[in-house]
Every structure is written in structure tokens, then in C-alpha cells.
């Protein structure tokens, strides 16, 4: 990872919709599985899975764009 990629991810991470960013934070800093996140936030499991995937896709695109 280059410094530029990290900068891009940071920007993209902060630009994520709150609903997506908070899910990633719960998984990454909270150490929660997506089922646990679904139970805690009252969000359907399918929605949690899709949002995490969408958010990670977006971060990946930004990272790949600076390769």
C-alpha cells in the first residue's frame, strides 16, 4: 500500500454514508461478526452483509484507482 492509497482510503472512508461507515467500524474496531452487528443494530442480516460489501467495494475502487 502506498501513502497515496492510504490517503485515498481515508478520504473514501470518511465519505462513506454513516450507515455503511458505522458497520465497518463495528466490525473492525468492535470485533463483531455481521450477525452480531445485525442483532445489535436491529438491521436485517442481509442488509448488513450488502452494506459491508458495498462499502468495501467502494473503498477498493478508490484504492485501485490510485495504483
Amino acid at each position, binding site marked *: 500500500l502506498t501513502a497515496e492509497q492510504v490517503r485515498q482510503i481515508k478520504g473514501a472512508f470518511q465519505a462513506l454514508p454513516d450507515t455503511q461507515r458505522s458497520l465497518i467500524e463495528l466490525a473492525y474496531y468492535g470485533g463483531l461478526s455481521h450477525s452480531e452487528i445485525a442483532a445489535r443494530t436491529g438491521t436485517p442480516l442481509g442488509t448488513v452483509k450488502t452494506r459491508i460489501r458495498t462499502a468495501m467495494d467502494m*473503498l477498493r475502487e478508490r484504492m485501485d484507482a490510485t495504483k
Partner: protein
Amino acid sequence: MSDARHDDFAAAAAAYALDALTPDERRAFEAHLATCAECQADVASFRGVSVGIGLATDPVDPPSGLKARVIARATGQAAVAAPAPTPARVVEFHDRRSPSSGWLAAAAGLLLAAASGMYAWSLHTQLESVRSNQTEAARRESATRAEIASLRQQSQQLARTVEVVTAPDVVRVTMAGTPAAAHATGRGYWSQTRGVLFNADGLPALQTGRIYQLWIVLPNQAPISAGLLGVNANGSGSLSTAPPLGVAVPRAATVTMAITNEPGTGSPGPTTPILLAGNTRTE
């Protein structure tokens, strides 16, 4: 591979890279992963994103020894293995079904029944042991996850501390207790671009429903709330507030920081005498 089974796992690769699958889900996904080049590529790139998230929110190297601790923990977990099965008891008897040896066949039958019972019991014991090992492994795994999460949080806090303390526009205030909290000491940092950081020791215990509030006071202005904090049994507490605070860090004027004891949700302005205070002039 893009069959129906793969589609089931489409969301899993991202969660896997974030460590957000339950043990069962992870096992199922890893079984699929072994046979799916597309998922392998997904996991590899998402791992990069996951590392990037860590770096993006956390520009500081992990403390030395962290890696060793995590590896030791992981190795300890790997060391939990099912016990070697005890060899099955082999019961041999000869069928000498002569008229006079009917009792022998009966005795042998009893022996066989007893041996089967013992064998079943031994299997049962092994099963219990495997189950308890599984529970132990799951417990360790969840402990390891919790530790990693906590280390990530610590690392992020550390990164934030470094960020604020090293900010080019930071002002630093050393605070001393007033007679009402003579043993209290504190230190505050304020950067317009990176936020406020404060920690204190020796503050009196808080009554239920009360909280400490940090104020930043600039000349000829009403005190600005910089956040709320509780204290532990030792009277220590800390506070970290994201920027910006609504006012700019003055270049020349004196900045005063002060702590008061306020109702649980904080107050718009200080309502009780100051317990801890200091200003930039004393630096």
C-alpha cells in the same frame, strides 16, 4: 466460478477480510474459498482495503511486542487439538456351541455386552472431550477477537493522541487542582485542526448523575464546553474531542482550561466552582 453457490458467498469475502464472519460462516466460506479463484482475488484485495482502513485511521506503528502477543495467542489456540482416540477394545470369543458349553456362550455374550457398553461409554467420553475442546477453542477465538479489537482501539487512541499533541497549532495547558480538589492534576491539548485531548488524575469521585466538564476559556468570551468525562476509582479520566471546536485557537491570547462538576448531560456554562485549571501563560 460464478455458480449459485458462489453468489451465496459474494458478500462473505468482504466480511471475511474484516474478520466479521462467525466461526461457522468462516469455515463454510474457507471451504468455498479453497476452490474459487474469484473469491481468492476478492479476499486478497479486500485484505488490502482492511489494512488500509487500519492505516488510514491509525498512522502509528503498533507497539512492539503486539505482533508477538497476537501470534502467541493464535498459536495457543492452534495447540488445542482433539485427544487421540483410545483404541477400541477387541473382544474375542470362540463359539464352542457344544451342548455342554451353552453357559460359555452366555458368558461370552455377557462379556461382549459389557465390552460394548464400555466402548460406548468411552466413545461418549471422547465426544464430551471433543465438545469441550470445541467450546474452549471457540472461547479462545472470541477472546482473541476481543483482544484484537481492543488493541485496534488502543492503537487508534494512541494515534489520535500523537496526532493532537504533534499538531502544528496545538496549545498545551498544564492544570492544577484548586483547594476543592487539591490533589488533582491535569493536562490539556487543543488543536483547531485535530481536536482536544485532556487527561486528569486525582479528581474527587463523582456522585451519581454528575459528570466533569472541560471548559476552554478565551479572554472576553463565555467558556466553551470541550466535552464531558467521568473518572475511575483513582480519580483519573480522559477526554478526546474531534475538531473543530467552533472557535479558532488564538495565536497570542491566553487560553485557559478548567474542569467543573456538572449534571450528567453537561451544562451550557459552568455552574459550580472550578476544581482544576491552568492556562497557556504558565507553560
